[in-house]
């Protein structure tokens, strides 16, 4: 019997012949085997020595105990975490009934075995297949982010869920109140809200439970963390160490992807015009004459774009931060993403149009498209291929060892699907 834990093991096998672009461990410029191997996330590999307290107790402890390389998880004063909130939040996160046609759950775009994003789509698909113009961001370490979303449109996990819940192209509920009413009709939820809050479901409590669960999805303790913050000089190989030097030096990546003395979130939580958003909007308005389409492994054709347009809905423009502030100065600005677990959260950029880390590095090495409003931080870097190899090796060292177990906890119960 196929079970959830087997799925991505199967994906590994499929990589051999079906999916040509499956990720492979990055090697440094000297060809040295890295000490950390990128591998698919597999809940079945999670080994827990003492499971007597249950997954939610472990998750609670994780959200209260700083991990190597990470600051303490900030818990709001009015939403202290508890086992009951975490269990409730997990159930809500996977419940397909919380959408208008009882089909979409949060987890459909934030797949645990795919780094709590989705590897299989550049940009997300919502109710009835409606297009979302942006890539699903990982919710790993979202506890530390403020603001949230690519455009920073919300500031707290307690409130961010409302937008996807009612967005017409996401879960499309007729109203947030409709969802709360459902929760207060369902026997399971009635009991769980009482246990977690001593009260019925409400919009606030719904957000608090979801936030409490998401604050358990913290993942530090990567090889880089052990090397930089743990005193383990062997945790990084030479290529990754050289890559870190380039990251903080010639590459100037650290200007936005901050690295502190005690911890590192690899983001400045700020918005920048890297030129990427402008470039993509220009491509939307002026599409190429042909587009390359993969028909089967190793079989590609260049298709006249008119044929593609014939079966395409009009794609929305994306003006980034401007869509929140309506300040012309904010056009095509997007929030700096964290780089933690970046090897496990492909594809990249706010619209997912770059499929590999190398594609991203090449974009920045070229200095972006160079449009007039582009940040001066983005300029040609002159990095050699060997140097790019090393930076890529460094980025691959940012993968945390607990992703299997985070996925296992997420799959501790089957999703509610009817």
């Amino acid at each position, binding site marked *: 019997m196929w079970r959830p834990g087997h799925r991505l093991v199967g994906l590994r096998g499929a990589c051999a012949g*079906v999916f040509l672009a499956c990720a492979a461990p990055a090697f440094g410029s000297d060809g040295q085997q890295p000490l950390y191997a990128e591998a698919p996330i597999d809940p079945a590999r999670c080994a827990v020595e003492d499971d007597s307290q249950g997954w939610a107790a472990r998750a609670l402890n994780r959200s209260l105990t700083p991990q190597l390389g990470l600051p303490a998880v900030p818990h709001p004063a009015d939403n202290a975490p508890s086992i009951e909130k975490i269990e409730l939040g997990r159930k809500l996160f996977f419940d397909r009934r919380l959408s208008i046609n009882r089909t979409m759950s949060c987890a459909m775009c934030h797949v645990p075995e795919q780094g709590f994003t*989705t590897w299989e789509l550049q940009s997300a698909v919502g109710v009835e297949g409606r297009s979302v113009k942006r890539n699903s961001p990982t919710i790993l370490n979202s506890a530390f982010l403020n603001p949230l979303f690519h455009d920073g449109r919300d500031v707290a996990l307690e409130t961010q869920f409302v937008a996807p819940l009612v967005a017409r192209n996401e879960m499309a509920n007729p109203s947030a109140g409709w969802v709360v009413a459902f929760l207060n009709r369902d026997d399971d939820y009635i009991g769980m809200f009482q246990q977690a809050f001593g009260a019925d479901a409400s919009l606030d409590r719904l957000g608090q439970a979801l936030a409490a669960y998401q604050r358990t999805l913290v993942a530090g303790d990567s090889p880089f963390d052990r090397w930089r913050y743990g005193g383990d000089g062997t945790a990084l190989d030479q290529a990754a160490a050289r890559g870190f030097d380039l990251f903080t030096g010639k590459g100037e990546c650290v200007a936005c992807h901050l690295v502190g003395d005690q911890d590192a979130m690899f983001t400045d939580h700020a918005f920048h015009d890297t030129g990427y958003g402008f470039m993509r909007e220009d491509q939307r308005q002026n599409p190429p004459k042909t587009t390359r389409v993969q028909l089967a492994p190793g079989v590609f054709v260049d298709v006249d774009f008119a*044929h593609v347009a014939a079966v395409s809905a009009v794609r929305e423009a994306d003006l980034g931060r401007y869509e929140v502030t309506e300040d012309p100065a904010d056009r095509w600005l997007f929030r700096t993403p964290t780089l933690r677990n970046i090897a496990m959260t492909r594809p990249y950029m706010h619209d997912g149009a770059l499929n590999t880390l190398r594609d991203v590095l090449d974009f920045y090495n070229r200095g972006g498209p160079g449009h007039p409003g582009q940040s001066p931080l983005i300029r040609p870097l002159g990095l050699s291929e060997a140097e790019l190899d090393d930076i890529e090796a460094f980025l691959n060292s940012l993968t945390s060892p607990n992703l299997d177990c985070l996925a296992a906890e997420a799959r501790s119960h089957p999703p509610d699907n009817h």
Partner: protein
Amino acid sequence: MNRREFGALATSALALGVMPFRASADETCQSPYMPMITGHEEYVYIWTLGVEGMGDEQDKMVTVDLRPDSATRGQVIHTLSVGGRNEAHHAGFNSDRRYLWAGGLDTNRIFIFDVHSNPAEPRLHKTIDTFVKDSGGCVGPHTFFALPGRMMITGLSNDDDHGGRTALVEYNDEGEYVATYWMPTADDMQGAVAVDGAVADGYGYDIRALIRKNIMLTSSFTGWSNYMMDFGQMLQDQEAMKRFGGTMVQWDLHTRQPKKVFSVPGAPLEVRFPWGPNANYAFTSAALTSKLWLIYEDDAGEWQAKAVADIGNPEDIPLPVDISLSADDQTLWVNTFLDGKTRLFDVSDPHNPKQVYEKQIASQVNMVSQSWDGKRVYFTSSLLGNWDKKGADDQQYLKAYDWNGTELVETFQIDFYEAQLGRAHLMLFGSAALYS
């Protein structure tokens, strides 16, 4: 003969390894276990996708009168809305042909229509809302293939990642869950053998059986994330385009065990077995690579798969979709969605199909159904809600033709948008004569 008697007889015949109702279908791709319509098809049931802003916006079963002498021939005589837009797609009668099962690829709901009480006005008999839970996580009920007393349903996706890994799911005729059979994968072959280096991807799409050889064949498409998304967006999404099926699986019909996995790259879709007593092969079309494939038993008694013809110019991606094999096994209709054409292949030598005819049906075309005598051919238009063409090219219709051996001659058409119905997809024939 009541349902249970029929099922018992068919089961007994199956156990003996014979085909009890060899000429027992009107439209040529139906399950061989099913009783046939003698004479002219009287109705066509069209499983139709609701469209926002059109009519009542819901999916519906549309009944069109096909009776030759009827005053309402060629007209919609009944519609039955089921609530919501479920991504209505395929449907199939149960083995006694009294009930029509129709699936929603998005919501996973299965609607069972009573088509025997009044074949001109199907009524909703039962709705199965628990397909995902029943099956243990299968998503996207697609093909409904009748076995004696049972309904074998192919899935397209799964509840974990909504990719292409999926299963076969078996119910009984009462709509009660029986079993789930997950498709073999490279890491869990379930005893199947990969032929010529095929990598079992675990994907699913269609299913058909050749009873006297005790085999089922399944094909492979793509998961929820792809079949629900905008077609043009998907074509430009390199990650999404990597996730199409490239295999077919041969199963043991009796035991439901997978036996062989064949490499058939480019999303093999509809599976069609011939009817000849010595015809040990099946056709399928690979949608993305635009090739006709033959899965056949070789001289040594082993089943193999090979590409036998191009369909149009593959570099133009004509996108072959539905195919229909004539009852005499001599010709095969092949529709190509993106150019809106139907093509007729001479398949008298199944190893060397030759195109002999081509006709533009509309700006887009998906399904084709022919009468048992091959003299009438029907076409509908919709592929998937978000894959259909946009704007003026989004033509939605039922078109009926007579085939005189050299030419398709249109007899009537219904514009499904003008009629405020929606997107016309699967067709199945009905007749009151079955139940008299």
